[in-house]
């Protein structure tokens, strides 16, 4: 499919967001190695295009919402979570988006429509259904997005959610970030059909397979899906073929990857695909790209420094936020 190219400002926004995510996650990795961030983390280097294409469609003011997985830094940042509350959360500081109580796997910011990044595989899907139910009952134009990995399609919650979304024709967009692996196990060992999208027919819903490294192609497919949802026709399953450059989580060296696989994917880096296109179209120069990258690195660095200086939550807050 030839996707219509976006306007220069739209492309700039997406580029900026991808660079921000990349720089932020590189910092997260460093902070982990330095033990400034503890616990675990799941980086999305290589998958940034999905997050920014998503963000282009999410209108929190309209009531749109998003749920995604523990690999959710990219989505949170693309949707507009500030770098400061982001880093503060990962460090467990009081200024974190969730006051430090959530951590890397549990990012929530209702002001940008982010219900949460879910740490239990498949758990976010039915919750997005509920958000879509609200839209349906209230006759609003809101559209609701849920993201999951290729490994998540084998859990019961996934199936129940696709079925219910189809039966109730809910305004939901189900986005699979198929990065070829669930933890350390390749997709083909756990799923008997070549594509996740091959399962949509079981629910009578449309499915689209899209190049997950091409933010514009993703944007176009999601646009269709949004229109489909808003027309009352129900859910769409979108499968983005993508790749994570790093291991599953910080302790994983990804030794299970066949040699050369990473290198091949690095050739199709989502940031460079967009940047190259913008340069070819005269919307960006290599020098401007470098300046932008540099600016963003500085912003990220500043946010890290800010977060480092923030206090931890007072232990008096321990038993707060349990009950509404």
């Amino acid at each position, binding site marked *: 499919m030839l996707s219509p190219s976006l306007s220069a400002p739209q492309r700039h926004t997406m580029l900026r967001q991808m660079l921000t995510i990349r720089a932020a996650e590189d910092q997260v990795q460093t902070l982990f190695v330095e033990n400034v961030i503890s616990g675990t983390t799941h980086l999305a280097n290589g998958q940034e295009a999905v997050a920014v294409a998503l963000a282009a469609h999410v209108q929190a003011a309209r009531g749109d919402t998003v749920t995604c997985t523990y690999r959710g830094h990219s989505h949170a940042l693309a949707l507009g979570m500030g770098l400061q509350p982001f880093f503060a959360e990962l460090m467990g500081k009081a200024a974190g988006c969730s006051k430090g109580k*959530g951590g890397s796997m549990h990012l929530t910011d209702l002001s940008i429509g982010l219900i*949460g990044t879910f740490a239990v595989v498949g758990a976010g899907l039915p919750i997005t259904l509920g958000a879509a139910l609200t839209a349906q*009952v209230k006759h609003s134009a809101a559209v609701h997005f849920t993201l999951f990995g290729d490994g998540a399609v084998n859990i019961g919650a996934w199936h129940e959610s696709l079925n219910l979304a189809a039966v109730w024709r809910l305004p939901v967009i189900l986005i699979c970030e198929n990065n070829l692996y669930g933890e350390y196990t390749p997709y083909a060992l756990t799923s008997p059909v070549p594509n996740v999208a091959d399962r949509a027919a079981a629910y009578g819903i449309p499915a689209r397979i899209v190049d997950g490294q091409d933010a514009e192609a993703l944007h176009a497919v999601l646009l269709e899906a949004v229109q489909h949802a808003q027309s009352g026709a129900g859910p769409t399953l979108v499968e983005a073929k993508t790749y994570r450059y790093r291991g599953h989580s910080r302790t994983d060296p990804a030794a299970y990857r066949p040699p050369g696989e990473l290198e091949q994917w690095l050739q199709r880096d989502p940031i460079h695909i967009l940047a190259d296109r913008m340069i070819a179209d005269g919307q960006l120069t290599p020098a401007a790209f470098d300046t932008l990258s540099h600016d963003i690195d500085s912003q990220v660095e500043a946010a890290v420094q800010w977060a480092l200086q923030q206090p931890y939550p007072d232990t008096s807050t321990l038993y707060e936020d349990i009950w509404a």
Partner: protein
Amino acid sequence: MTTLSYRDAVRRALDEELARDENVIFFGEDVGRSGGVFKVTPGLFEKFGPDRVRDTPISETAIVGAGIGAAITGLRPIVELMFADFAAVAYDQIINQAAKMRYMSGGQIKVPLTIRMAQGGGMSFGAQHSQCCEAWFMAVSGLKVVVPSTPADALGLLKTAIRDDNPVVFLEHKALYADYGEVPDAEHLVPFGQANILRAGHHVTIVAVQRMLRMALKAAESLAAEGIECEVIDLRTLVPLDLETVLTSLRKTNRLITVEESPLAGGWGGLLTSRILDEAIWYLDAPVVRVTMGESMVPFSPPLEAALIPNEQHIIAAVHRLGIKP
């Protein structure tokens, strides 16, 4: 006052709250068009329409999850899981998601969701349709757990549950659906965390809920004939737990018996007694006896089931075991 069955009291609560607040919606398996497996909800689908009262596929995880999502985004959903035993297939959504989302989001999220289900035995439904499941939900923090014993409480507590901004597990006892009782005509709300003293006495405090409360009251009646006066307390809600009412009673009776329709390791009595032991051991003049099902499943065979579930005789035996004399 009107006389209403427990079943109809639940329906009245749903009806009143659906009518009161258009954000209240209700869904579950067969609850709409056909009025529910326990015949609790007929008429609601016709009255409130297919947007607000829905039949679902057999997908408990999706049902609870959709309830959570709708709750987060502004509705006040009530979902039904039919037999409480089936909550096990949706356990993650209940205890890991609904219960924890507010905390994990640093207080951004609220989940005003009511999860209704029917629990309990005594009806020959066998091991997978007869459990009292309170302990499953009390095991984590973040869920209110409500166990109405009378029609008035079923009405008043369910209305409170629906208006509560937290996830509430609302456990109806299926053997009580056909019980009748007096219910106020006017709007009736029963606050959470207030136990009810159903019978005053000074020899022993008996704490129970739901069907076991009926057994406790019968036992108290029989014992009264012997001159033993039991104070019988209905906890009404297990989370929050009204320890104060139990302690006040203990100060008077100095003896405690709990009656629980569950295995010994799976009731609320362990929590209750450990709290009393911490705060009020000096009030106790005797061991605390928990009358439970011991270590067991619920057998189908009617006489076996009857022998397993605590009844009047078990309670009287416990009172005698404590050596209580008139």
